[in-house]
């Protein structure tokens, strides 16, 4: 697993529209590096003979019947949006970005 550096964090922050100060970028790069390191140690423990696990409990087929439940109003849907227009989320131009 590749290490995470400050540029990676800045790039992700831009994609996710999260504003981060230089100080925050430094701190986050350090914290994420620790997490990546920790995950790496798991990879070392699990050899080729250990199947990948996506869920800790051996459950299958947890289903829901096809019955309509609750919904939001447009107002509720947009209540946390930074910007909206005519009942829809308004987002910055897309192609200007990475």
């Amino acid at each position, binding site marked *: 697993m590749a290490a995470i550096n400050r540029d990676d964090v800045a790039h992700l922050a831009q994609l996710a529209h999260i504003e981060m100060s230089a100080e925050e970028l430094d701190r986050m790069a350090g914290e994420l590096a620790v997490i990546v390191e920790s995950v790496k140690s798991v990879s070392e423990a699990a050899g080729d003979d250990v199947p990948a696990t*996506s869920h800790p409990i051996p459950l299958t087929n947890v289903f829901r019947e096809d019955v309509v439940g609750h919904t939001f109003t447009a107002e509720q849907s947009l209540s946390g949006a930074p910007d909206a*227009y005519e009942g829809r989320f308004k987002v910055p131009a897309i192609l200007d970005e990475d």
Partner: protein
Amino acid sequence: MTDATLSFEEAMEKYDPVLGFEVHVELNTKTKMFSSAPNVFGDEPNTNVNEVDLGMPGVLPVVNKTAIESSIKIGLALNCKIAETCRFARKNYFYPDTPKNFQTSQYDEPIAYDGYLDIELADGTVFRVEIERAHMEEDAGKLTHMGGATGRIQGADYSLVDYNRSGVPLVEIVTKPIEGAGSRAPELAKAYVAAVREIVKNLGVSDAKMERGNVRCDANVSLRPHGRERFGIRSETKNVNSLRAVEHAVRYEIQRHAAVLDSGEPVIQETRHWHEDTRTTTSGRAKSDADDYRYFPEPDLVPITASREWVEELRATLPEPPAARRKRLQADWGYSDLEFRDVVNAGVMDEIEETIAAGATPTVARKWWMGEIVGRAKNADVDPGQLGVNPATIVELNKMVEEGKINNKMASEVLDGVLAGEGTPAEIVEKRGLAVVSDDGPLLEAIDAALTAQPDVADKIRGGKVQAIGAIVGGVMKATRGQADAGRVRELILQRLGVEG
């Protein structure tokens, strides 16, 4: 900038096309793939959503059982194997059509794989298309690009997002590379997408309306010189959303690739956008295999296991496949290939089947639907089945004609009356006074009048030129406003003139 193209014929002389398709089918479940919000097209934006569709923190998706069953049915109808166990995966990307920054999809464990579909081309040639996989995923929200030119993403100032479509269950059907189609590639492309659409509609698992995006096609095209085994570099034309457009887009890309290869340049592996107005494609985002979606198993969902019992239960519910049904009906009805193809193309196969079930012969049913109803439907700009003719009406009209109560011309008029809501055929015949005149009295009067009006014709007939009788028959029919039985009129004229028929 307009791309250079070669003529299709020249492209075919020099190169061999290889195709591939990704067809997305929206399922018509009542609710979304992972949430209980309604799966409904065209409502007020951002109202068919709840916290799961909006990707709120801390929410958990739950799989729609009906969507799984529909997916298995699609897999079975495509002659696929159904995975005993499979999982969902996260496909990570940053784009505002998903509020979660990932799409829940399937990656290396599709629910269905290794299938095929036999595609019949217009001349009866059967071409086998191999299916690589059919996997489940969720649809994304709908973006509208504002400002800039004509709603395109290029030059837009901002975009608006409606998440009503977010989370709608999708099945993506991916073919293996399709080789050997040659110059029939565009036709095969259209026929393949048409066959997939017909199958999911027949299964009842999708509304299958291409104009609403229920069935969407991405078409991959590459060319290689004849005789070379290795594939050329492909382009992927996105969202080709009508059957006609699929055919045109494949044809155009073959012509464009051929021109690029002829110029000695390599084809660029990229996404192309189809433009219906100019019938051309333009370059989209360049796509390299470096695109990394960082797929990983979805930790919020547990695996799906499809027991063989469950699969067989579902298989038992499958309707007769469309192609098999067509073969059976054509044989039962005794139509020629051409007659049957016309019936299918006119979209009245189901209606003819119902009419025959109601008691008409196959010949009579075809005569009415193809001869009378299809034309009226075209004028009214509706599907023939939507015009409002029911099979019983046709059976009744035909019976009246066979019994000599009305003639074909009148029957057509009665049909107009039925469509205008004037009542049953019998009532309309009565109201409009349309019964065939069979009492010889009024007919003889009309015949005498016609003979007097055209004495030279009468003489010709007396002199043995019986073929001249048409003019007199015509006069009588005109006088009786078409309500006389032409055969009887002819007999009476000959009698009157003392000539042997």
